[in-house]
């Protein structure tokens, strides 16, 4: 069950990547991989790109899981990227899985 939810969330995040990538230069497009960094020095997303991505993820979570998540709050509180759920695609998927399974 857990693995299935995680896999579905990962697919949802990859869908959000597909929607944000057209806004990015070819060389800065996000890879559909769990270790793709989202926040911090290794990320290809600037602040506008990160906002666009988190809004796409929030909408997709509402559409596919009927769950409201507020990633903007997490973004605002991410003083230390290394500890943020937004540090990578995989860590974000894990964070979203726990949110879904808690409710």
């Amino acid at each position, binding site marked *: 069950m857990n693995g299935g939810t995680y896999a579905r969330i990962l697919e949802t995040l990859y869908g959000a990547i597909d929607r944000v990538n057209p806004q990015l230069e070819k060389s800065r497009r996000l890879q559909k991989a769990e270790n793709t960094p989202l926040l911090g020095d290794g990320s290809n997303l600037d602040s506008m790109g990160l906002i*666009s991505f988190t*809004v796409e993820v929030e*909408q997709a979570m509402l559409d596919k899981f009927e769950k409201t998540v507020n990633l903007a709050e997490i973004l605002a509180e991410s003083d230390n990227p290394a500890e943020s759920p937004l540090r990578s695609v995989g860590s974000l998927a894990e964070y979203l899985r726990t949110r879904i399974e808690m409710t």
Partner: protein
Amino acid sequence: MKPAGKILLVSDVNLEPFARLLTNDEVEPQRSQKTEPRLEARVADFGRLHPTLLSGANPDGCELALIWSHPENAVPEFRKVLEFLPADHERILAETREFAGAIARYASGFKAVFALPWIVPAASRALGLLNFRKDEGLSYLLARMNLELADRLSGHANVHVLDSPAWFARIGEKAHSPKLWYLSKTPYSSDLFREAAAEVRAAVRALEGGARKLVVVDLDDTLWGGVVGDIGWQALRLGGHDYLGEAYVDFQLALKNLKNRGILLAVVSKNEEAVALEAMRMHPEMVLRPEDFAAWRINWQDKARNIADLAADLNLGLQSVVFIDENPVERSRVREALPEVFVPEWPQEATRFKSALSALDCFDSATLTDEDRKRHELYAKEKNRETLRAEIGSMDEWIKNLGMTVTVERLSSANLQRAAQLLNKTNQMNLSTRRMTDAELMKWADHPNRAFWTFRVCDKFGDSGLTGLLSLEWDTAGNEARNEAEIRDYVLSCRVMGRRVEESLLYVAVRFASGLRARGGKLGRIVARHVPTAKNKPCLEFFKASGFQGDAAGTAFSWDLERPYPKPDGLTIAVSE
């Protein structure tokens, strides 16, 4: 891929995500064109809508601009309406006119400017029942403001009001993103921006003369239901009390509507020609009859080969062609063999054919003239000419038999729109492939050392309309020292090629330049410089055979003004000064 054009986005909101999409997106296959313009978008400071317009600011030297404003910011008095406060409606309309004036003045610094009408703010019920009440409702007032905006901008040839309310209607409730608004002052979702980007590209393509001109359709299971060779025309699903039959009739009507706006229709189908034509003639509910098609290739040959032959017969480049076939194998074959032909993905079920056709943006053009509407008729007459040519052996006799008159007129406000359209859409017989808006063309021609003519061609089969352009420049920087007059534009529609109209243009050019020389000018020769493009080789070939002297590189051609250029035999040239 065409070279990038720079577009400046001027708005009262943050359009950075839209700018990124316009610049970086790879276009969806359904809407993709081989000739898709590539844009580089820049964003003006979104807090300074009015100051940007009023100052004429264009720091990056963009050729294009998009004005995407919101009514409460563009028209300050309108804000009161949103707040349900008493508002002065006459003042609102006056401020709308002022805003339109600011756009028009700002547009003078750009090749083209796109302005968007206003929509009712997101998720606003406003006054509900009263929204369309005269002089009271928000929707009523916005409609009046939008009409005022469109009316005021309609006199400016390089300003185009885009139908943005249709974009919002297509995307629906997901067009707006409240979260993005509060996070970044971007009120719209990526869905809406994708729609907007496709529409802006379509508009740019239309301005560049990239509209498709010919739709080639398959027959069985595309124009009608069933295989006519197997079941006979009497058993085809077409019309009747049958939902699919009705859908095929509607698709044919939609194709006929395209024909009415000047898009040519043709058939390429694997069938017995006699059987297929009989169906088109005999079926009582057939909307499209053989005479509705400019040409057809109905045989058992490869469809890609047939399309290429058919386009060549109609003197059209493959970049003008759209191919519609319900069979994915045939679509794939044509895409692979003829990459310039646009082959849209096509729904499997006929109930969606009409909407699929209506959604195509590849026919968008910047203008729609009477000549566009008559294009099919013109091609039908061309068929008659070709029949006559086949019956009469020699070229001289054929030309004489046509009874052609070429009427030459100076560029004027009366022929400007059609002249600019021809200049911007002609690819093959085009010496320099200069592209100019109406205003740019008139400005260029309005010079004492320049002349710009239009050519109309008619014969016993009918009027081919304004089908040629010629311009000359002399005693200006660059050619004064060389004592030469230069042919800057030499443009001829493929409709009249091969009928000695080509030579008529040169006859007029040389005659005019000789007149200048006779009146004391120092001109010694007239020269034409071919600027090569991927498509204008036919023009180069003509000049090589024209009698003009080619230079060593084979790209510049000149005529000594001591000799007259021979007047083409068998036709009348009427010069109207």
